[in-house]
């Protein structure tokens, strides 16, 4: 029992890792993914080397503990997306 939104797509409500074609990676709860962009809620962004961590190290930490929701909403244009993966599937 709970709240469901079956019209939002398979990734709706799922915490995803969005790697970009640049140096940034985003983690957030997917709201919707369209041909034009992915829309994330309660997201965080990490740049390669930020805080002394590689993007892979940042993602592994998030896979263990979760991510800090520093950005209430963000969209990543499809042209900048390299990959979209479920965070739960990335834990070592």
């Amino acid at each position: 029992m709970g709240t469901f939104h079956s019209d939002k797509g398979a990734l709706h409500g799922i915490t995803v890792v969005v790697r970009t074609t640049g140096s940034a990676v985003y983690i957030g709860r997917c709201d919707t993914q369209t041909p034009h962009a992915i829309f994330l809620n309660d997201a965080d962004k990490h740049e390669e080397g930020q805080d002394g961590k590689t993007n892979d190290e940042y993602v592994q930490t998030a896979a263990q503990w979760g991510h800090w929701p520093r950005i209430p909403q963000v969209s990543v244009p499809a042209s900048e997306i390299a990959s979209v993966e479920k965070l739960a599937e990335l834990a070592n």
Partner: protein
Amino acid sequence: MPYPEEMVAPMRAELADNGVEELRTADDVKNFLERNKDKNAMVIVNSVCGCAAGAARPGILLSLEGDKKPDAVGTVFAGNDTEACNYVRSLVPQAPPSSPSVYLFKQGQPVSYVPRHVFEGGYPEAVAEHLRNLYVKL
């Protein structure tokens, strides 16, 4: 702003009606952990979110059907039992706020943490297996 209590009542009941102790205040959590400081205990952060909690609650209950399980199980409700929830979260400060989530304690100390994304889009059986793998380490 808390969710309307009539909205969360069935989600509270899904756990409480199956023997999980409701912890509404920080003192409730402190007392729960103090009473069980010589045992293993689990605190569930319950949530309205169907994407994750919809599998978490039945999965947690399924996991408790086995022989190896925490000696005591309590729950707080994210967004409603705010003080209690904040206290639980303060015990594992490296973990960002996440609901639903699960905290496991051994002799009063946190030893395992399961964040929301583990429950998302899953099936109760998978949730139960994940938790049972943690229970055997208690």
